[in-house]
């Protein structure tokens, strides 16, 4: 005999159906269109478009810079969340609101301001220039822009988890003789790890797709500071729709695989830590 699991709330069929239709309209169909458009090319044409040295260089920059930016945000986002949760100080509310700023700001505005500041004659740029550090119009500038737009993700995912984390567990660790570092990496870090990973993957995903804030500061020199989204726009402007979608398809597939890997890692780490 089969037993059917009773759901406490009714409407599973309806809500699932609605979700699938909604996701299809908003996400799946547009993405499918990318792949359908790509099929206009034969495989050899496709391969030729997506593996030109100039395009390969953009993959390296986009994924490399996104990864570095997400890692920077992982560390400093955690630090920011920690400060916002653990300490009381003057201006805390303002700092808290400031974190969301990169979300609200039009990315082009962010790009222009960052460029103005980091350009060789800008506020920060003219201090860095004499030390041989060039930010604007280099890959380093791309990392700066991607770090800027990805900042809120880690802060906002970790903050609520840290707030929920009981001070008692920390006190328990201390009473058992653990020093501060041991308390952090043995007790606190495992508890916030899933949230950190989520924030990291969101920041990374956002960085891969970022266009507006990067193109101003990057300088867009072929082989050096061109990002993949720019490559797609360039193709579109030349009415090369099939070429643009081919590169977009590659970007999509790589992003999907990376996000899937992060999700697997997350699933694995939360299961290793017992039923929740």
């Amino acid at each position, binding site marked *: 005999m089969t037993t059917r699991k009773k759901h406490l709330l009714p409407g599973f069929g309806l809500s699932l159906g609605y979700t699938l239709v909604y996701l299809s309209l908003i996400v799946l169909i547009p993405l499918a269109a990318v792949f359908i458009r790509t099929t206009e090319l034969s495989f050899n044409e496709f391969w030729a478009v997506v593996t030109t040295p100039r395009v390969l260089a953009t993959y390296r920059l986009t994924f490399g810079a996104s990864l570095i930016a997400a890692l920077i945000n992982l560390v400093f986002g955690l630090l920011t969340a920690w400060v916002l949760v653990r300490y009381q100080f003057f201006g805390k509310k303002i700092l808290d609101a400031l974190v969301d700023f990169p979300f609200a700001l039009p990315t082009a505005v962010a790009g222009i301001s960052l460029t103005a500041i980091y350009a060789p004659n800008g506020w920060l740029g003219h201090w860095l220039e004499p030390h041989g550090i060039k930010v604007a119009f280099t890959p380093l500038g791309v990392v700066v822009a991607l770090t800027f737009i990805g900042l809120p993700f880690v802060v906002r995912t970790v903050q609520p988890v840290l707030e929920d984390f009981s001070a*008692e*567990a920390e006190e328990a660790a*201390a009473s*058992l*003789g*653990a020093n501060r570092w041991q308390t952090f990496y043995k007790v606190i870090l495992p508890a916030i790890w899933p949230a950190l990973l989520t924030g990291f993957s969101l920041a990374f995903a956002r960085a891969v797709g970022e266009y507006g804030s990067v193109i101003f500061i990057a300088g867009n020199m072929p082989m050096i500071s061109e990002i993949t989204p720019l490559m797609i726009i360039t193709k579109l402007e030349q009415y090369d729709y099939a070429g643009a979608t081919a590169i977009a398809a590659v970007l999509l597939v790589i992003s999907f695989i990376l996000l899937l890997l992060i999700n697997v890692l997350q699933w694995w780490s939360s299961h290793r*830590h*017992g039923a929740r």
Partner: protein
Amino acid sequence: MGITIQQISKGFGQFSALRDINLNVPSGELVALLGPSGCGKTTLLRIIAGLESPDNGQVLFDGVDTTHADVRERQVGFVFQHYALFRHMTVFENVAFGLRVRPRETRPSNAEIKKRVHDLLKLVQLDWLADRYPPQLSGGQRQRIALARALAVEPKVLLLDEPFGALDAKVRKDLRRWLRRLHDELHVTSVFVTHDQEEALEVADTIVVMNHGQVEQVGSPQAVYDQPATPFVYEFLGNVNAFETPQGKGFVRPYEIAVSREPGLNSIAGALTYVHSVGSLVRLEIKRTDNEQYVDVELGREQFNQLNFQQGETVYLKPTQLRVF
């Protein structure tokens, strides 16, 4: 290890949580800090542990001033009200935590840790749960694991904050007997905080009754129950009736009142408004004729059956013992 507390005071902003506390906990005793919520008992416990620092006064462990020693150096085992188990670690790893974080020179080998942890889990009778995670355990099991974890570091003092507060009545009763037996086995100096007088009376060697940040009375369960030092202690430790007497306020326990149908010298008349007869004791609720206040009386079942009082009839009360403050 004995604990001496000298003139401890502690305030939180405007609120004065503890005022000039002096207390001596002899080595090997099981002491209860008993009082209503907000009386400062938990703050005192946390000061002993080193989780809170006093504004004034000293904490001595075996005569050595430990007031400013860090919680890590005090060698106290602390059991939290809500267990504070590490939820991402197995039961085994929770108990092993205190051993694993030791510096390499004093850390036991893996084999020793394994043996120690299993011994402790056997002591708390939960060896079979070693590979589970805390969210999979019941409240009583979690509390026993928390205790095993605290004992793993071989603390000189065991401190328990409302250890049974979050458990249901039946589990609570079992656990407090079990704690008593465990203490008799280990003889580690233990202090526990509770607001439940029954719990304190049943488990502790010595009860410290606290109110409004001050110690009201220190004594054996029998002493604080039979000879309360203040009206507060009288009212906090069990039911009590208050009578106005020419000398002041008099206190009488419900079983220290004689009831009869005949008026006597200085007896008080009243109407029997309610009879509650479940268990070995029969509780009578009597409304005084003179001032309409209610008086609680407890009689043995046999005595009640002989007298056979009926609800509504007029009876005469006479305290057999009266303590006046």
